[in-house]
């Protein structure tokens, strides 16, 4: 048996001394291997990496039991700076590159602990070899790189110390399918150069492809482990993390409660979904054209998806529809109303609700309060009667809390209602955002990457929830998403954008066969 480079034994971690994030987690990484950690949101994957890289302190976490050994050395009394020098480096979730520093300076910061100038130069040559695009852009500021290039920079930055063990937290988050493939290849290359890798990856297909071994983490504990091949073959993993194929709609998995999800939601008004018409929409920021002459129509009561590579203008489009950005030219009609001429609160009054790509919730408030904010538009009692707690206000509040509880149940976040949002994982926050949008009883729901950072199983639950509310409440949905099984299984029509231009539109089946779409976005995985 090869020597282990990292041994985690019976690890427990708690936040603020109370919330238990990890319980009895044991795991080993053999020298020269790639190990993947799979798991749903809030399972504690990021916590695990932070415990290993000794960076829990800044987020209020602490190891309460167990040991972590790196090359036989107990890390209990070591800090981040020490482990980096010892050859263990973490590339954080969400890339977190230094936006105002140039590519070269980002790498320089990554190689800060390397005292020897020659070694540093050699490391940067290796990074530029691995990522030629970074060499091309070495004097450009990090913030100007595209999402995929930023991920490469984040990985390159971590490689500057020539680590023995690299920790990667969700390297494919928010990336288009063809980029995900490329990141997977790069991880394989890094491994081939002799670096061991511990990888957290929501895209289980990619994670299992590059990993030798994998662990499944659920609610803070390891529930399965084995070689990637063994795990890929188990039904449970296939259903919950892999899905079947990458280009077909996910078929109904037997035994899962997905056939009949009923919402128990009712409209408190008689509002109906209308047709949404986007006509010749153009948006420019300074000299950059984010959208150019884009037109499409979302029929009343249908689910419509907007897909395309990073930077294609999808979020910009959602932002114009929701009123956050102004259109430079072109119009957006919702029924008879002209959305592109209205401020965002008037758009909300028309029954348009949205979620945000970068999540925009009140972090200190509880989940329930965040959802109640979404009901604001529907509440009838005034501030004074609420403050005086008049019977009518109390009755309304009870009713509203009940409505919020039903929405939470539908999205599977019922148990989280009392938690404050800052304790939740990325994927759970996504669900709270979706819940807040639904709480407003919209007739048109705009969803920006609703399942980013979710496992296949979780995105299936989300898809069921969206389908259920769409059918029972008759609302229209326009969604932006990179998770192709999710999009293709859910959407009735798909519009594809590339560099701000409309390049294809049709049913999911048509779009997946369109050569232009394959080239620009899906890559070979779907071919």
């Amino acid at each position, binding site marked *: 048996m090869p020597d282990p480079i990292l041994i985690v034994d019976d690890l427990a971690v708690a936040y603020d001394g109370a919330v238990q994030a990890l319980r009895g987690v044991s795991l080993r990484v053999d020298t020269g291997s790639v190990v993947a950690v799979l798991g749903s949101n809030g399972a504690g994957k990021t916590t695990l990496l932070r415990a290993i890289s000794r960076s829990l302190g*800044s987020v209020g976490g602490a190891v309460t039991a167990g040991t972590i050994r790196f090359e036989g050395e107990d890390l209990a009394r070591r800090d*981040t700076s020490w482990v980096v020098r010892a050859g263990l480096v973490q*590339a954080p979730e969400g890339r*977190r590159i230094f936006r105002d*520093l140039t590519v070269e300076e980002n790498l320089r910061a990554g190689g800060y602990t390397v005292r020897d100038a020659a070694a540093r130069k050699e490391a940067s040559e290796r990074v530029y070899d691995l990522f030629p695009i970074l060499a091309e852009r070495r004097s450009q500021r990090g913030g100007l790189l595209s999402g995929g290039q930023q991920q490469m920079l984040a990985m390159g930055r971590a490689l500057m*110390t020539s680590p023995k063990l690299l920790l990667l937290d969700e390297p494919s988050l928010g990336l288009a399918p063809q980029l995900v493939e490329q990141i997977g290849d790069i991880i394989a290359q890094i491994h081939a150069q002799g670096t061991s890798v511990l990888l957290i990856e929501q895209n289980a297909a990619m994670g299992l492809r590059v990993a030798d071994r994998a662990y499944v983490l659920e609610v803070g504990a390891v529930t399965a482990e084995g070689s990637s091949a063994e795990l890929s073959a188990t039904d449970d993993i296939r259903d919950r993390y892999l899905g079947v194929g990458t280009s077909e709609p996910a078929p109904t998995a037997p035994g899962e409660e997905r056939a009949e999800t009923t919402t128990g939601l009712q409209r408190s008004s008689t509002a109906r979904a209308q047709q949404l018409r986007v006509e010749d929409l153009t948006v420019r920021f300074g000299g950059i054209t984010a959208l150019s002459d884009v037109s499409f129509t979302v029929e009343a009561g249908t689910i419509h998806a907007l897909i395309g590579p990073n930077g294609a203008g999808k*979020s910009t489009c959602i932002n114009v529809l929701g009123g956050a950005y102004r259109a430079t030219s072109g119009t957006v009609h919702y029924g008879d109303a002209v959305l592109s001429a209205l401020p965002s609160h008037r758009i909300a009054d028309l029954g348009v609700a949205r979620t945000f790509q970068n999540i925009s919730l009140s972090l200190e408030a509880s989940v329930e309060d965040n959802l109640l904010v979404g009901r604001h538009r529907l509440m009838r009692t005034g501030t004074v009667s609420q403050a005086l707690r008049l019977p009518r206000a109390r009755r309304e509040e009870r009713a509203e809390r009940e409505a919020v509880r039903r929405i939470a149940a539908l999205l599977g976040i019922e148990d989280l209602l009392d938690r404050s949002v800052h304790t939740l994982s990325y994927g759970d926050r996504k669900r709270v955002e979706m819940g807040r949008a639904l709480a407003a009883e919209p007739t048109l729901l705009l969803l920006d990457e609703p399942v980013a950072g979710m496992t296949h199983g979780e995105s299936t639950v989300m898809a069921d929830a969206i389908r259920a509310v769409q059918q029972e409440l008759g609302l229209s949905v326009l969604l932006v998403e990179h998770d192709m099984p999710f999009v293709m299984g859910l959407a009735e029509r798909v519009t594809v954008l590339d560099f701000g231009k409309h390049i294809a539109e049709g049913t999911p089946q048509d779009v997946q066969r369109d050569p232009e779409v394959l080239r620009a976005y899906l890559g070979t995985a779907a071919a």
Partner: protein
Amino acid sequence: MSYFLTQLANGLSYGLILGLIAVGFVIVFTSTGVLNFAHGSVLLTGAYLVAVLQDPIGFWAAVLVGIAGAALLGVLINAVLVRNLAEANPGTAAILMLGVDILLLTELTRRIGNRVLPIGAPWGADVVTFGGITLPTSRAIAAGLAVVVFGVLWFLFARTGAGVAMRAAAADGDTASLMGIRLTRTGAAGWALAGALAAIAGIFLASFPSPGIAPTLALTAFAAIPAWVLGGFDSVVGAIVGGLIIGVVTALAVGYESDLHFLGRGLGEVVPYAVMILVLLVRPSGLFGRQEAVRV
């Protein structure tokens, strides 16, 4: 014309000194997130050390001690007070610094009393004249030295590993520490740099045409606050440009006060803040401040 040029040269040299102070505000703010209202008394401490030591150990040795002393004072304030704050709340830290400022200033006032301590610089009250412009030698040296110091800072932040690490830590401390950068060290380095810059500025502010060191010198540091703010809080370049703008406008307002008497007297004290307000009205995040644009 030569009167105008003289005022302009005066303003530019004064502006460069203000720039030294304002850059200190910026560096402390970006490296530890603190609005350092104790900066003025750190400056005064540095200048005070020079004044009392120049007689026994000579001016140049006293300058080195003064600069090192102010740097050390900054490091101590950071290590003892700032790092022990339970939560990184800029408000708490700012009030704490006001307290530190009052304590230091009270002690220095007690030591200085009503005296005005001469700085004892070899350039004394000399003036230089060229092309019809008359400028105190101290101001000419200050301007030249400030330019050199800014050049050194540029080299430090753009070309050295430690400087890049400081910028990385300022941009995203959590991520920087994942790269092995110790935030305690970048913070200490920031406070030390700011203290040293303040001491250099203090020495020149206490030189001719100023009579010497009095407790009011600490207040002069506050004249650099508009320069810091209008440059954009977190930009070193902004602080330098801000210092120049405030310096020139102040010098011109004072120089032409008799022509501007309809605006009343004491214009030089008001004008920096008026300029700051005007700039912020047009550019709310300052001239070089990071745009607080949030992508939704």
